[in-house]
């Protein structure tokens, strides 16, 4: 506090506040190039690689949502598989009535968000550990209820109709584009949300909930907004999953309601760096590399991923991206502010927006 005051007296009008320490133009152009390259993928790689990319993009979307929940709103949910599963079913159900699954993705996202509202009301009062298990129970309840409905396949699931006429290669490409659009919208959405007033509110809550509350911040409303937004993202990802697998299978082991989905998204976030937008991207890459390298050893990738996540949670709390950022001031998605004066170019002073969660 005093430091800032002194600086402003010393350098007067020369103080500058920017979103980034580097030229934003270049990272903007970089992001655009990456996007163009990613969109062109189906044209120059085989459907096998594209298929793997789809899985990666689904995990990326989920990880971004989990990061928003746990990293920015302090909501450690272990029940996000509920919304993934609901998303899958809300692509399946319209498809059974003739709606194309591509349009079903929108229905899935909205339906998951709508259902999240009453579910939030059930767990809103709980904090941290109890919130975590309560969301897990909710996911279980959602699954048990859906398994009662025999018209959507009950406990065994159903194949997804509506896409059987498509050429497999074209279908893979379309699925990839859908997954990519969902992932880009998810990350872009999180970015814009955090740059908006909501981001400021969330930062205030994270730094000092009581102070935020007493300053008139509507803490409950902000948390609910994040919970619903994350449900929308996970619902869309679940819709993509249904299209990718061409079927919807419930069940806790291997199905859409498996807690392993939440494990994957949470571990990717922790490994990549919680509380940064870049973290989930880096974490998903680590996840994909591990999964591909160990794919012939069944669930070993998940065991290794869990071990890596525990080690990082204990010894490098800010994750891979956080560690890089500490050294190089990297920031592809600037959501905070840097305070600096031109005379002190090497000043590392930051607003609390950048503090580790």
């Amino acid at each position, binding site marked *: 506090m005093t430091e800032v005051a002194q600086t402003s007296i010393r350098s007067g009008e020369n103080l500058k506040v920017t979103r980034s320490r580097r030229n934003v133009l270049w990272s903007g152009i970089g992001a655009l190039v990456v996007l163009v390259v990613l969109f062109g993928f189906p044209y120059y790689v085989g459907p096998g690689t594209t298929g793997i990319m789809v899985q990666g993009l689904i995990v990326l979307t989920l990880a971004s949502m989990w990061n928003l929940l746990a990293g920015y709103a302090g909501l*450690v949910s272990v029940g996000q598989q509920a919304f993934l599963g609901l998303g899958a079913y809300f692509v399946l159900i319209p498809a059974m009535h003739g709606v194309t699954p591509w349009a079903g993705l929108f229905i899935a996202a909205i339906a998951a968000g709508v259902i999240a509202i009453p579910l939030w009301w059930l767990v809103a009062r*709980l904090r941290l550990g*109890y919130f975590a298990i309560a969301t897990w*129970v909710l996911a279980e309840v959602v699954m048990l209820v859906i398994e009662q409905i025999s018209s959507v396949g009950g406990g065994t699931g159903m194949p997804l109709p509506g896409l059987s006429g498509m050429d497999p290669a074209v279908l893979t490409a379309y699925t990839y584009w859908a997954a990519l659009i969902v992932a880009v919208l998810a990350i872009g959405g999180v970015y814009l949300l955090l740059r908006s007033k909501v981001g400021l509110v969330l930062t205030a809550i994270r730094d000092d909930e009581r102070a935020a509350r007493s300053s008139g911040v509507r803490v409950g409303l902000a948390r609910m907004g994040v919970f619903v937004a994350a449900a929308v993202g996970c619902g869309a990802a679940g819709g993509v999953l249904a299209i990718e697998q061409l079927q919807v299978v419930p069940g806790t082991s291997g199905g859409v309601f498996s807690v392993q989905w939440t494990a994957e998204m*949470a571990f990717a976030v*922790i490994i990549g760096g919680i509380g940064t937008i870049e973290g989930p991207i880096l974490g998903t890459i680590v996840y994909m590399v591990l999964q591909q390298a160990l794919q012939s050893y069944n669930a070993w990738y*998940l065991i290794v991923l869990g*071990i890596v996540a525990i080690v990082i949670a204990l010894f490098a709390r800010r994750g891979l991206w956080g560690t890089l950022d500490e050294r190089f001031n990297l920031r592809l998605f600037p959501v905070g502010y840097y305070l600096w004066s031109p005379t002190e170019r090497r000043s590392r002073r930051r607003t609390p927006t950048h503090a580790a969660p």
Partner: protein
Amino acid sequence: MQWVNAIIQGLLTGGLYALFACGLSLMFGVMKVVNLAHGDLATVAGYIGVGIIAITHMPVLWSIPVVVLLMAVLGYILQRSVIQSAITRGELTTLIVTFGLSIIIENGLQQFFTANSRGLGVGDSFITASFSIGSQITIAWFNLAVFVLAVVVLLGLQQFMSVTRYGRLIRAVADDREAAQLSGADYRHVFGIAAAIAFGTVAIAGMCDGMITTISPTIGTDTILLFAFASVVIGGLGSLWGTLLGGVILGVAQAIGAQINPSWEQLAGYAVFLLVLVLRPQGLISQGAPA
């Protein structure tokens, strides 16, 4: 009459659920740790029992104290190493570490023991022995014994907490860690003791579950952790006898649900859980505010 039977069976199952729940409640009460690997530790205990019996051919009942001892030692070591370093780094880290342990244990067990379910003491006559009241009600002696065991464990815990030196230390550390430390108590050691006790109860629960039904790698989260949590919430957070009340209510609700429609067993239990969560979030036996 079959309703009475369902309620009695549910009541007895509640004893098992109380055994699931009391370790979870204890660890939260003392070190504020919500152990997401709680259920999987019960599964681990069951598999240790399977292994010990396969190697030494000892009777299943004799293997229980051995497993309890092993799990208590494991609890102390795990608490003093991984869980303690997680606690010092904050609640998010604790959740991630215990969630990581849960996923590692569950998938590890699947790799080593396959997804097949196993029973403990299969074929032992004392597990299947039962007595009848009238023509409709049949009670398995062993289920009754587990219920009595649950009551004994809870009574023992209560006595331990209020009478022994370590019990008082645990309560002191749970109440005010700094003050206890100033008085010369090493809170890390006390946490280790509490974890050892919690893991011991988990071991009893895992072995009993393996004998009443079967164990498989996934039951740790699918049933044990979630049922334990539901029992804790229904009964009241931080209340020892609340876990028994919560377990019994959950068990009876499941039994009644199953009586109406076999596939409603779990849903009925969770319905009661959600009802309590909404109407009385502090639980039926309230001790302070909800967490």
